[in-house]
Structures are given as C-alpha cells and as structure tokens.
C-alpha cells in the first residue's frame, strides 16, 4: 500500500522532471535556431524578394481578419466605454478610452494572437511539411542552407508584418470606435479627437505599443518557425506542432505583454 503510493509519487515526479528537462532542452534548441536565423539573415536580406514573398503570405493574407476584428473591437470598446463613462458625465472621454486601450494593449496583443492563429500556424505547417517531405534535406544536399533560404525570410517577413498589422489594427479600431461614438451615439466629434490627442502621448503610448508589437513579431514568428522545424516529420507530428504554435505563442504574447507593460509604466 505504502510502497504503491511512493512509487506512484515517484513516477509523477519523474514525469514532471522529464517534461521540465524536455522544455528546457527545447528552449535551448529554439534559442540556437534564433541565433542561426540572425546569423543567416544577411544572406537572405540580400535577396529582398524572398522576404517580400513572406510579407505577402504573413502580412497581406492576414489583413482581412485583422481589419475586420479591429473594426469590431473598436465598436465594442466604444459601446461599453460609453455606458460607463456617461455615468460620470464624461462621455467625451470615450475617444481617449478607445484610443488608449487599442494603442497600448489591444492593438499589439490581439494582433499577435490573431497572427499566431492565422500566419503562425501556416508557417509551422509549411515548414513541418517541408521537413516531412524531405524538402529541407534536399535543400541541404544542394548546398543551400534551409535556415538562410527558408527560415530567415519567413522570420523577417513576420517581424516586418507584425508592427504594420498592429498599427492598422489600432487605427481601424479607433475608426470603428469613432463610428459608434460620434454618428451613432452622438458624442461631439471635435471633443472625441481633441481629448484623444490631449491624452495619448506619442512616446509613451504610440511608441511603446509599436515596440510591443515588434517584440511580439519576433516571438510569434520564431515560435512558429521553431515548432515547424522541430516537428516530428509525420502528419501527426506536424498537426501537433501547429497546435503548440498557437498555445505557445499566446502564452508568450501574454507573458511578454505583462513584463513589458510593467517596465513601460514604471
């Protein structure tokens, strides 16, 4: 009886330890891939079309979902914000509320989450499949580095797309908020913009949001690339890897957001 409990506990601990070590191991390999990617970037940036192609696949193809989501998020923010603000008689501050929430948090964070689901999974699946069908090996045998030819362009494509998408998200969200607040609810349009301008600081709000989205771009793209590159070369392995991309990217985005916000606010 007692022996049974001890051995069960031991196996649980063993399992936990095993997973922990595996995660550290994966973190190590991810950092190594990151290093190699940066080291091979010069080679791929010298051929801009490779990167432009990836901007098309990650950025342009994510535009629709980003713009539509942003519009709705902005409208909902305005509706909810108005409800609360008008109780304090400051419904003109609705522009401030919408703009600050979008520029500081929702723009970068929601864009990154959508990006992970839309572009990140596509990157993981594509690279995982290239690996499973030996395309990466074939490239290596042709004396072409898959990191320089496949990984690095996708990395830069993602890193460049993300801040642009996040800026668009914030801007379109604010327009959505404007449409609800001004024509629909009847808040004064002048007050909407002027209060916003008075309270949104370029450096502290816009720039910090921009920095956040750049960091998220690096994190999400790198996670997607690593999961694809690390996936077992089977159909099941690739499908699991895409799931991991979404889960790990989301956790990374939320965690990084907390860390960066606490630094930026202090």
């Amino acid at each position, binding site marked *: 009886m007692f022996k049974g409990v001890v051995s069960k506990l031991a196996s649980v601990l063993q399992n936990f330890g095993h997973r922990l070590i595996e995660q550290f191991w994966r973190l190590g390999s991810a950092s190594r891939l990151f290093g190699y990617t940066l080291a091979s970037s010069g080679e791929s940036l010298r051929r801009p079309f490779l990167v*432009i192609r990836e901007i098309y696949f990650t950025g342009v193809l994510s*535009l629709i979902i980003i713009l539509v989501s942003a519009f709705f998020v902005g409208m909902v923010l305005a509706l909810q914000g108005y409800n609360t603000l008008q109780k304090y008689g400051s419904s003109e501050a609705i522009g401030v509320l919408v703009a600050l929430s979008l520029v500081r948090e929702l723009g970068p964070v929601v864009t990154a989450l959508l990006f992970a689901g839309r572009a990140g999974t596509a990157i993981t699946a594509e690279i995982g499949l290239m690996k499973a069908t030996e395309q990466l090996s074939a490239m290596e045998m042709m004396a072409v580095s898959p990191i320089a030819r496949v990984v690095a362009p996708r990395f830069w494509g993602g890193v460049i797309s993300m801040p642009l998408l996040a800026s668009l998200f914030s801007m379109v969200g604010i327009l959505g908020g404007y449409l609800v607040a001004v024509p629909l609810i009847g808040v004064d349009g002048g007050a909407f913009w002027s209060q*916003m301008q008075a309270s949104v600081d370029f450096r502290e709000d816009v720039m910090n949001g921009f920095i956040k989205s750049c960091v998220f771009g690096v994190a999400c793209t790198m996670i997607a690339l690593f999961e694809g590159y690390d996936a077992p070369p089977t159909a099941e392995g690739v499908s699991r890897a895409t799931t991991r991309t979404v889960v790990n990217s989301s956790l990374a985005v939320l965690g990084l957001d907390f860390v960066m916000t606490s630094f930026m606010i202090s």
Partner: protein
Amino acid sequence: MDRTKIDLWVGIFAAIGVAALLGLAMKVGNLTTSNIGETYTVTAGFQNIGGLKPRSPVKSAGVVVGRIDAIQFDSATYEAKVTLKLDKRYLFPKDTFANIYTAGLLGEQYIGLEPGGDEEYLQDNDKIMQTQDAVVLEKMISQFLYSKATETKE
C-alpha cells in the same frame, strides 16, 4: 501568384501600414501638438502639484501655450519646482498667476496661466511668483466631512 502581383500587394500593405502608424502618431497621439517651435523657460513653485506630470500642457485662456518640462523637489523651500517651456510667440506679464487646474472632474491636470497687469514680461529663466496649488480632492472631502461633523455636534 506572380512576382509583380506580390510586389504590388506588399507595396500596398506597407503603405497603408505606415500610413496607419503615422495616423496614430499625428491624429491620435500628440506628435504634432507636442512640438511647439521655439520656447523659453520659466519656473514656478507649488506647495502641492497634485497629479501634474512632465509633458502636461500649459494653457492660457484655454489655448495650449507650452508644456511642462520637468518637476523637481526643491529641498531649500520644500516646494515643488516646476519648469515650464512656453512658446516664444506668447509673452506674459511678470505678475502672471499660475494655477493648477483639472480638466473636468476626473481629467488630467494642467497649468493655467492668468496674465496680470505688469508692464514687463517674463524672461527666460524667470520665476512666476504667484501660484495656486492643485485642488486635492481628498483634502476637500475631509474638510467637508470635518465641518459637517462639527456642525452636527452643536
């Protein structure tokens, strides 16, 4: 998908992305309004600045005429020493009054300048002598409660 089409789409994407970023900077943020050309510096001492922050606006008659550059504690006078950067185009008499106001009930705090009648104008590095502190809500409420309490006792 041929190359020129991809190039075109990426070009459009980059253009509207950058435009959005500029829009955030100009239309949403205060990049345009925070850069007031040539400035001169004056200081003012306050007993209590409340929630005033660097980069808060300085207004006169409701018009933004400058920004707060820095806020320090002066250990000689135990006052807050606020440095204001005012637009060179606007001149104020030496006996101008500096008040800390709040925009609305819960809004941001800013400094309001009320010009006096002096013949001479404030120069660079001058000090505004007459100031009024921020209204501290807690203080007002506790004063109010205190007076109520003494009222009911009588």
